[in-house]
């Protein structure tokens, strides 16, 4: 009986520990990951700028992300870079839509 209780207890502990650690392994937060996020945001911003549809504040987020990375605040740097990337993603996506629809609003 003791053995059964011990086995069930051990399994329960393992299960509970597993539950607290298995979901979405936390993203690695390091200078390397921050720099990668910044580089991705910059590349996307350049794409939007080249298409002439970049948003006005995106470069400010990238600049702030670089400052945060230098100050070893990597999570903040990643958040800002991701926000900058998201803005360029939306700008490029919307621009592709508007390319197809702009003629519909021309005064006729």
């Amino acid at each position, binding site marked *: 009986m003791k053995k059964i209780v011990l086995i069930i207890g051990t399994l329960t502990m393992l299960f509970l520990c597993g539950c607290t650690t298995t979901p979405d392994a936390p993203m690695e937060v390091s200078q390397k990951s921050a720099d990668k996020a910044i580089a991705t945001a910059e590349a996307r911003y350049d794409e939007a700028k080249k298409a*002439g*549809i970049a948003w*006005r*504040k995106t470069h400010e987020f990238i600049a702030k992300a670089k400052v945060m990375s230098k100050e070893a605040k990597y999570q903040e740097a990643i958040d800002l870079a991701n926000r900058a990337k998201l803005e360029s993603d939306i700008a490029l996506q919307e621009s592709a839509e*508007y390319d197809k629809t*702009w003629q519909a*609003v021309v*005064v006729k």
Partner: protein
Amino acid sequence: MLKAIEKIIVASTVLCAFLSAGAFDVQAEKDRLAMQNYFLTKFSDPLGKSASYFPYVDPEEIKKDYIYPVKLEDFAHGTASWYRPTKEQLAEINEFPPYEIALDEGKELFYKKFANGKSYSDCFPNPAVKDKYPLFDTSKNEVVTLGVAINECRAKNGEKPLKYGQDDIAKIMAYMAFESRGKPIAIQIPTKEAMAAYDDGKKEFYKQRGYFALNCAECHVAGSGQRIRAEALSPTIGNVTHFPVYRLKWGAFGTLQRRLQGCIEDTGSLAPKIQSKELRNLEYFLTYMSNGFKIDGPDTRK
């Protein structure tokens, strides 16, 4: 008989040449007339048409502050063509125009000798050419604005280019606009490449952009006749006639492209550089929309 056939051939050749030369601006002409018709209709009876054109305006404000019907030529005054408070403010400001000193400086700069003894007047024997700009240069296949032409004149005479958008170049352009007052805008679309540039400008005008996903037309076609907070929105047609403007916010003259940059930034978008292809083509389109309106620049704006 032979002479008669020869005459017919010559006449048909001339006719064909004439028709094909004018063929490039057919769509542009349709656009221009449609735009004019839109504004004439909209401002013919704002109260009666408020549901269609002025859904967010209090009818009492229309009765009190709107001027209507607006005549076509009056759109050259921008917002002052339909909005009484703006018209009255501008009239008061222009009793002693704040731009007079800067305008005199523009004239001085225009005739000031370069190091080689020549001046702008050698490039522009008649300074009254604002009605022809921006023009499409068929040798370069691109739109040349008056600002670009001024800097080309400097380069030809061994001078460094001026900074675009403000300061000296805006003063010189203001003087040239002043000399051009009363001349109807006469922008031409001479080739298919010119029409492509016009189309690019048209797309710039209608394409949504920025955080707010706005295009120029939302404020200056559909929105014209309404306000953004306290600011009344100007109509597309006639708007280019008074540039460069002495803007009270700037405390100086500024060019149309400088104003366009500000407008684009207000949509939450990164504005193209002054004299970029995008802004030159947009200026080409906008100015074509105002063909026939008389130059009345420079003028004062808030």
